[in-house]
């Protein structure tokens, strides 16, 4: 495991993993979509709109997973100053932001027919919107500071401060009176969802997770290469300056 901390070994592992992960992700997405549309029955209350849940719930899980990944990687940046930790955090932000956006939009599209409104300022919806803004803030911070090391440390501090929002999202439905329903899958006493709907939900959740991991690995590879290119171009400029002197 420790050998993966070596960027060259990590790149070699990514090269081997990406084709397998691509096939597995596409396969599971296909199965998940089939179960979502052709096997899962309509819900007795939500009707056909329950099918939106098969993308909304996994996207919402990954929105939080992405941020926790950034928070853990940020610890790696600040404590061990490992360049791969910074690379992992930086590249997870746009992916996490995308899944958060998907969770917000699909939730809104479900809310209109079920609640009669696209949006309410309840604790769950607002805290997820804050998560989206945190992602955008992190992306902006990485873009604003040119030197990757400095940018990584500044973003790591912001990411760790913002991590307090993740438990707020999770427990908002218990702590406050919200329109958003409370947990129905990961709860004491087991899920309250019928297995006919739980199966497509889990398949889609695994497929989305694999998609997140796949895109993250490719984005990390690109970022490592970008930093190598940057270092080489700097060396080239320094050599040219020495020759001129």
């Amino acid at each position, binding site marked *: 495991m420790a050998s993966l901390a070596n960027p060259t070994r990590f790149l070699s592992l990514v090269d081997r993993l990406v084709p397998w992960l691509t096939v597995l992700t596409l396969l599971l997405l296909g199965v998940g979509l089939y179960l979502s549309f052709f096997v899962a029955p309509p819900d007795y209350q939500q009707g056909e709109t329950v099918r939106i849940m098969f993308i909304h719930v996994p996207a919402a899980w990954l929105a939080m997973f992405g941020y926790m990944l950034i928070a853990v990687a940020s610890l790696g940046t600040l404590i061990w100053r490992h360049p791969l930790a910074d690379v992992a955090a930086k590249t997870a932000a746009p992916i996490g932001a995308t899944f958060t956006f998907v969770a917000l939009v699909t939730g809104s599209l479900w809310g209109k027919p079920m609640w009669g409104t696209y949006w309410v300022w309840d604790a769950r919806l607002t805290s997820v919107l804050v998560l989206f803004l945190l992602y955008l803030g992190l992306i902006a911070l990485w873009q604003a500071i040119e030197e990757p090391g400095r940018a990584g440390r500044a973003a790591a501090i912001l990411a760790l401060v913002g991590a307090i929002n993740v438990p707020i999202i999770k427990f908002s439905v218990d702590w406050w009176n919200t329109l958003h329903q409370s947990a129905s899958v990961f709860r004491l006493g087991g899920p309250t969802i019928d297995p006919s709907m739980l199966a497509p939900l889990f398949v889609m959740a695994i497929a989305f997770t694999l998609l997140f991991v796949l895109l993250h690995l490719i984005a990390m590879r690109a970022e490592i290469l970008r930093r190598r290119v940057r270092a080489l*171009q700097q060396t080239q400029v320094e050599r040219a300056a020495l020759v001129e002197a």
Partner: protein
Amino acid sequence: MPDLGPHAVFILSAYGVTFVVIAALALAVVEDDRKQRRILADLERRGIRRRSATTAAKSKAGAPGKPPRKRTP
């Protein structure tokens, strides 16, 4: 495809937005990866290499050299 009832437009919009947004992200990530590979390959073609890569190349060719050092990722 089952009959999605009166809320079909909301269901199909949700899946449509998800597909477009995630496809755009995937394309951007893959294109960036390809772009960085192209730039790095171009630099290496011009003989501009990382010190560790040069040492590794020399070692493979049988020339003595220092073992690769851990550097910028």
